[in-house]
């Protein structure tokens, strides 16, 4: 080894080249932002924007006081919302399990054909929000709870499938090897080596998705897919702002309760 004979007078965190790259990157981001801003606001009517605070105050004053007598009418839609979320989650999870096993590198029967298909199903389901699924399904099978349930289920496949296949890929290979060594068949290896390892993840993911689905199912009614969102849409259409307040408070309450339940259940499982 050669001795270090001189010390640089200035000390820098990065090499000059890396710094140049970094600055260029930031500059490009700023330029991109400005360009995007220009494009986006090209058709914005600024008079409306400057008028917004007055509009906000106007809406705010109309929303108060909430019309609490409207509450009893909301109970049945709320029950529908819960059913959409719960049944949709169950159906979604049931469909997601085989997809996850096809998508996981260590369990997929064919990495060339079935795995890419499973991954595409997952991406397609994840990319499309449940509201868009609902929009489509209402057009296809008509308005109602069923469209909501199917929309929630279709959106859940991707979420549950992705997290579950990652959990399957993270299983301990030694435990699986040990089960294989006993002469177990492929299905037995699945049920003794892999399933017990992913069970906590499975329940955690399902409950987590149920919690998200409660939130999402509250608004599906906006496009006609049943639940409390229908009432929201109806109230907005007739500008019944005091009713809107009641509905929003009820949605908030439901979301808080479902979050609490899901956190409780997840803690009990893990």
């Amino acid at each position, binding site marked *: 080894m050669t001795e270090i004979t001189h010390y640089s007078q200035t000390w820098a965190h990065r090499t000059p080249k890396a710094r140049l790259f970094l600055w260029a990157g930031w500059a490009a*981001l700023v330029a*991109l*932002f400005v360009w*995007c*801003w220009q*494009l*986006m*606001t090209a*058709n*914005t*009517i600024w008079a*409306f*924007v400057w008028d*917004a605070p007055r*509009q*906000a105050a106007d*809406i705010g004053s109309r929303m108060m006081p909430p019309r609490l007598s409207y509450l009893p009418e909301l109970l049945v839609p709320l*029950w*529908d919302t*819960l*059913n959409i979320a*719960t*049944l949709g989650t169950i159906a979604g999870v049931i469909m997601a399990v085989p997809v996850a096993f096809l998508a996981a590198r260590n369990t997929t029967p064919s990495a060339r054909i079935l795995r890419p298909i499973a991954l595409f199903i997952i*991406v*397609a389901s*994840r*990319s*499309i*929000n449940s*509201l*868009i699924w609902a*929009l*489509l399904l209402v*057009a*296809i*099978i*008509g308005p*109602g*709870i*069923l469209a909501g*349930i199917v929309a929630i289920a279709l959106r859940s496949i991707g979420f549950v499938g992705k997290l579950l296949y990652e959990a399957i890929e993270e299983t301990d290979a030694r435990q699986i090897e040990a089960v294989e060594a006993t002469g177990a068949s492929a299905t037995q290896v699945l049920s003794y080596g892999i399933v017990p390892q992913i069970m906590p993840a499975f329940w955690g993911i399902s409950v987590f998705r149920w919690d998200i689905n409660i*939130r*999402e199912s*509250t*608004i599906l009614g*906006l*496009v006609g897919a049943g639940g409390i969102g229908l009432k929201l849409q109806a109230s*907005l259409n007739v500008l019944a702002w005091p009713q809107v307040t009641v509905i*929003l408070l009820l*949605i*908030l309450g439901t*979301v*808080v309760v479902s979050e609490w339940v899901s956190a409780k259940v997840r803690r*009990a*499982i893990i």
Partner: protein
Amino acid sequence: MSDQSYPTTWRRPPQIVTNRRWRLALQIGILVYLVLAVGSIEVDWERVSIGLERGQRFVMGFLQPDFTSRWGDIYRGLIESLTMTLTSTVVGVLISVPIGIGAASNLAPAWIYYICRSIIAVSRALQEIIIAIFLVAMFGFGPFAGFLTLSFATIGFLAKLLADDIEEIDEAQAEAVRATGASWWQLVNYAVQPQVMPRLIGLSLYRLDINFRESAVIGIVGAGGIGATLNTAIDRYEYDSAGAILLIIIGIVMVAEYGSSYLRKFLQ
């Protein structure tokens, strides 16, 4: 010992609910709920059978998407969505950083902590769609309302995760920096920033992806973007155009996902 002394049957003991009565009550409860819930679904089979034909047309539209006949609308919607996504993510991240620092109990005084945490709570509790409805009512139709919606939602998401991250930083490193007599700003710069920065970048990229997906939705209530185009296409029963739009959305999400994982690797 003789053979007879060992039991010949064994049952797996219940793992979660160990009390027999509770288990039974739980099982019956679940069953009753399922019966009631499934019973509450009202299906108009006539309507469904008419719909199946439409469903078939939609699947066909998805398999043979029509990119050309509505390309002008699709292009405009896409530009709105993409610009909205980028600007709202940048603005959202810029606002999230101070709020995230303010919501970290180990850095901020109590009153700032409570203010920042309540901003986060409000942003997280409200659905993007509901926020969009109000912002459209205030700011008028168009991507500007969408931009505000997504920025606001980004704050709730990023500031929370950032604050939780800062609260979990290695206290030993912060202690070491504090011991040199560093000021609060120096502490943030030397002890907090290096530990949190990689995750902040990762989360921002992830949020970019989410914002794009959300931008496709809020158009339904009038906040601009590709969602508005999609809504129109479905309203007009133009399933081949709708299929094209959905495929574009899926494609962009896929590109964003691969791109962001590549970018994250590159930055580390």
